[in-house]
């Protein structure tokens, strides 16, 4: 039984497509630091099938902002999480991307367009520039996680050998106001 589970998990891992943060940067716009990022988001056939069957996909972006301190551990300046959901609407035959933090919603005719829109993060307000000390070095780290959502947790646990969630490595860069 356990060996069968390991076999299934191994097969799922073997077919992993690329999922990583291609690039990211921050820029101050009108006194607010904004985040821009491009994510390489390719879904496996299994995930695409699940999406087409009406199972939503959730992209979670974890953002951490720390301030460098001498002789002391770095200060946690800000920590936030953004969640988007991509779901197929069979009645309209459209893919709907919903920002779960703001409630904004956009629809796309095709899966690719919807995934491209999801992977492209533009002008996400990060922090008020006044909250960052001038001349101090800060580090921004982001990590994206994509989850096959919308299923009961119990079902996920029952089919525990499936990879229901994947995460990128932390992508870190520094800014100096």
């Amino acid at each position, binding site marked *: *039984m356990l060996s*069968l*589970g390991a076999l*299934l998990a191994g097969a799922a891992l073997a077919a992993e497509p690329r999922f990583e943060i291609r690039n990211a940067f921050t820029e101050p716009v009108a006194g607010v630091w904004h985040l821009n990022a491009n994510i390489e988001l390719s879904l496996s056939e299994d995930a695409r*099938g*699940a999406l*087409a*069957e*009406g*199972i939503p996909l959730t992209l979670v972006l974890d953002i951490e902002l720390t301030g460098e301190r001498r002789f002391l551990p770095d200060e946690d300046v800000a920590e936030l999480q953004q969640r988007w959901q991509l779901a197929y*609407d*069979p*009645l*309209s*035959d*459209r893919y*709907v991307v*919903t920002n779960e933090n703001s*409630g*904004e*919603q*956009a*629809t*796309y*005719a095709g899966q690719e367009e919807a995934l491209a829109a999801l992977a492209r993060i533009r002008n996400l307000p990060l922090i008020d520039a006044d909250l960052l000390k001038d001349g101090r070095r800060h580090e921004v780290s982001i990590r994206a996680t994509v989850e096959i959502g*919308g*299923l*009961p*947790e*119990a*079902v996920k*646990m*029952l*089919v*525990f050998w*499936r990879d229901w969630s994947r995460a990128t490595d932390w992508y870190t860069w520094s800014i100096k106001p």
Partner: protein
Amino acid sequence: MRRWVPVAIGAGIVVWVVALALLAVTTRDTQGFVKLQPWILMVNAAGVLTLLAVLAGRFIELLRDRRRHVPGSQLRTQSVLMLSGLVLAPLLLVFTFSVLFLTRGIDSWFHVEVRQGLTDALGLSRAALDLRMREYLARTERIAEDLEFEYSAGLFAALDDHRRLADAEELSVVSAGGRVEAYSASNLVEGLPPPPPEEALLQARRGESFVSLDPIASGGYAIRAAVPIGAESSLQGRRVLVAMYPVPQRLADLAEAVQSAYQQYGRLSYLREPLKISFVLTLSLVLLMALLAAVYGAFFFSDRLVQPVQDLIGATRAVAKGDFDTRVPRASRDEIGYLVTSFNEMTQRLARARAEADASRHAVENERTSLAVILARLSTGVVSLGHDLAIRVANHAAGDILGADLQARAGESLASVAEGQPLVAQFLGAVRPHLEAGQMEWREQFTLRADSGRRELMCACTALPGEGGELPGVVLVFDDITQLLQAQREAAWGEVARRLAHEIKNPLTPIQLSAERVRRRLLGGLAERDAELLDRATHTIVQQVEAMKQMVNAFSDYARAPAIELASTDLNRLVREAADLYHAQDARVNFELQLDPDGATIEADRGRVRQVLNNLLTNSLEALEGRDRPVVTISTRRIAMAGGSCVELTVQDNGPGFQRELAGQVFDPYVTSKPKGTGLGLAIVRKIVEEHGGRIEAENGPAGGALVRIWLPVDEASRGTVGPRGVRKQEPRREHA
């Protein structure tokens, strides 16, 4: 097996059952338990692994026991296999049917017709909405035609009118640059209206009408249409009319329901295979746990069944080896428990019986030991004889009195022991007639004749019950009363001697004086013949009176018992002096002296010892009268005993020896074979020897002639060791060898 293991296993099974129950609850998606699910799965997995490990250990133990032929291992194997088989068959049956039911049931849920029906329902919904969309698109195109030449303020008013007439939610005109030129909505929002989708604007700018069904964030749907307004203008570019129409509520609800069912079905369809595998795995897990628990249960019950049997086997072996303290713990109250209780009671009774037997044996042994000590210390001889006259028990004194080591010959017949042992033969001759006559209780005094003298025995016989089925025997108790009788005789003779001395000695002097007076008065006045007669007669009277005086004096000496005066005396010197004296009297006799070169000094009354030597040598010389080559051999030697030392003095001649009929009576007063003897010489010798704590024996030597042996203690401390038969008890050895 250790006691905590079943408890731990029982607790594990309880946890496992609870975990399974929780697992069943989580499949209903109860949020509280969902967080516990990993732990629940871990508990299940840990339970399986633990049970596997425990069972592997038990199987190895069972195989090892079988290989070593441990008692009960076969019974345990059979019971484990039987119980496991009994559980395995129905479990596998249930498992097979459950898996078939689950897989086929799940497959039947996703039957092709169901999917087709849902797809058709969705298509129907789309068709209904398409009809409405085309209608709204046509309506939008008409509005666009009307607005071709409307700009600025007129555009706003026209837009408002058209929106109301067309039942649109909102209408907006977007310029070629993407700017909203005019906007009309049934519900005005603050700020700028949201921009229409890029996709719609692009299509409309290409001159093609666009219509789509858009899901709304707040729920429900809206129909969005984008239509180019008029012909493309090179100066201003083509404007686009974007309209949003609400979907009728009834239609929206129905479509939503269809879509929801379709999506739900899609999700389940996607999860069909994983769910099947998951359920089968869960079922397998449950089966495995149940199976392992059942096998463990089989071990547990076989243990409960076999353990008492094993305990009983072990305890039986221990009892067979004599360990009656073995107790088997009572594990249950069933028949096995009853058996165990009975076994324990039996061993208790056995232990009690053995303890009593041991106590009895110890008591008997103690009594025997005490009896042996008493018998050993008795001066009375005790001999126990079987019905066949075999010696069962004899004490040392018995052997001493009868002159044979009866203890060493226990088990032998008294008749066979009597061969070559004259005293034992005489004893048997005295005893046998009574026993053959069937007399078991009698008492008799008889005399044994030995070379060293007579022995008077007082013997009592008592019947003994037979042991272990043997016929009854007898115990003979006898005592050497020779000394006692001797003492009585001596006392009587002493009294006689004293009376004789008193009664006879007194008239002797007047007789002698009278005879001398008669001789003096009458001798001168009588005729020669008469005078000669008178002279002879009075001389005879005087002579005989003198002889009688000597005799009376001898009796007086015998009766008198003055206190002896002990002093260190060299016996060898006294012997030499006596030998010289008597050699001077009769030079014909050859005296051979064999004196201990290490000296023979004793504590004794010198005068009395000298009298002993004189009496013995006088007897020897008298016995040697008329003999050719008369020889008197005198020897001394010192003998070491356990409690002291003594000196043995022997005087032997080569005369005729003691008369056989006088054996045993030579020391009695007035017993003599000499015509002139008083019969008091040896009696006085023995009296003196016994006064010194010594011992005397008289017998004929191996080559004939009288042989007198005397043992005298060297000092006061050695007196007790020499007494009657004292010397014989010890193996004589030379000191300073």
